[in-house]
């Protein structure tokens, strides 16, 4: 299953509910031409679980890489990165599924029931972006120290971000 097949399979399954889908092939021109395949898909946040379920159906053991995320205006955008067809020579596809949740009610379902390896990343999203992961088996913090103030999310850019914890030495006064 190559990058275009993966994209088309998602397009068929989520007709109308998929917001964007593209593939990207990066060519390496050396003595032999090789390429890296990337698929980027944006789905509605309510369809995240179904998208991961669909992914588990079309390939055996998708490899979960990580979730990346950032704040964009009123929304939080999270991208779930997976690797498919690994352990084969040059057929690997990196699939990134992007979802968008509003900052007022940032809730996403857990995918740890389908892919247990996603636990650390989901815990990270809870503390770093303030997304609530519904059904997460372990909701403790992971990278932030227990002494780090509650309600401050380091990856946010608004008033809940870490700006007030940063010492601006040039302003004087220090802590």
């Amino acid at each position, binding site marked *: 299953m190559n990058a275009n097949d993966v994209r088309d399979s998602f397009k068929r399954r989520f007709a109308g509910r998929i917001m964007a889908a593209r593939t990207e092939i990066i060519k*390496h021109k050396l003595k032999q031409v090789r390429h*890296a395949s990337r698929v980027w898909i944006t789905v509605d946040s309510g369809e995240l679980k179904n998208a991961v379920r669909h992914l588990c159906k079309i390939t055996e053991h998708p490899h979960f*890489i990580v979730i*990346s995320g950032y704040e964009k205006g009123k929304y939080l955008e999270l991208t779930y*990165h997976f690797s498919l067809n690994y352990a084969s020579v040059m057929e690997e596809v990196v699939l990134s599924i992007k979802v968008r949740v509003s900052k007022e009610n940032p809730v996403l379902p857990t995918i740890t029931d389908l*892919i*247990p390896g996603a636990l*650390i990343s989901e815990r990270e999203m809870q503390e770093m972006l303030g997304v609530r992961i519904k059904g997460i088996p372990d909701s403790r913090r992971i990278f932030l120290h*227990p002494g780090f103030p509650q309600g401050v999310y380091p*990856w946010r850019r608004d008033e809940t971000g870490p700006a007030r914890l940063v010492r601006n030495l040039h302003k004087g006064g220090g802590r």
Partner: protein
Amino acid sequence: MRKAGDIIGQESRDTYSICVGPVHPALKEPVRLNLRVRGERIEHVDFELSQVHRGIEWMGTRRNPIQILYLSERICGICNICHTFAFCRAVESIAGIEVPPRARYIRTIVAELERIHSHILWAGVAAHELGFDSAMHYAFRAREKVLDVIENLTGNRIMKAIMMIGGVRRDMDKGQARLVMEAADFYSRCSRKLEKIFLGDPVIKSRTRDTGILTRHDCLALCSVGPTARASGVRKDVRQDEPYGAYPDVGVKAMTPDEITGETRGDVYDRIAVRLREIKQSADIIGRCVKDMPEGKIAHEDKANVLLGELRGVQGEGIGRHEAPRGEVFHYVKLVGEEAPYSWKVRAPTYNNLLSWIPMMLGAQIADIPVIAASIDPCMSCTNRAVVTGPGRRQVLGQDMLHDLSVKRTRELRRGLRP
């Protein structure tokens, strides 16, 4: 906030809690393991990572891509090429920068030298954990050569600072190529000797065989990467699956234990075997790269300010991946046409491998903790003590004591093996 001496989850009279770390001789990394043990058997595993979160990703979003190169080198002392390599690839894929072939070869050579140095360092530490200090000294002596070569190529023993977006910063001349070739030959021989020392030794074998097993099924479910995954029979290697740098020309094949010992069990022994054989594999890759190295430019753009100007107008998101000594390094970068990236996510291999400690340690013995913990080659920084608490008693297990326990177990085994 809990202190190291507090009792964590004391369940009943039969079980007691033991916490190892955040600084510990075997872990060398700031992670704290909270274990519940019944007698000598481990029944529950939990870990805390929050010891040294430095906010590097946050710092990155306030710097330009060239500054981030040097910041990303400081994520990890050992994998400093890995993070810059992955970051460069992410930015290059967004900006559509083509890296000149010669630069790809130099990048590959330096990355493989780093793998040799990391694996030998790990072999030394593993030997020390087993109480086999002569092998540790042999490994550390062998590692000096690769550090000298790295110093010759880059100017530094550890922090290489050779990567640049679109190429590398330093070229390699003929004399250096000869030095690298010599080192590659040396490590081919060295890897055979290390294999003989580690894999042929009956004490190491009885100590590590069937210890800390990670089954193929658990490995796939927990998404392990690198030698940890390969030792469990999952042929996952970015150099093979999605070749980059000079790897398309070299053709790397993922190393699994069945090619070395004839079977795959996913235990500590297999992880040692895979890493030691990868030293030889790296030496071969370096040899081929030096032989086939094309002539030409070493960077897309020599002047940093011109490069920065070019990157300032770029928008988009990109992924950079690299097979580090411990597994896949993954960087996600989002550029929005400003000086600093809008978002930067770094995924180091240990991030995924940590969860695999749980199935490895369940049912193991306290004396096996250092060996199992070290077997995934965790990369996180170090309190040389563990506190054992139980009803009515409290005892501090220092570095010496825990290490002694491990050495004692090896000696007992050795006595048992003697005819």
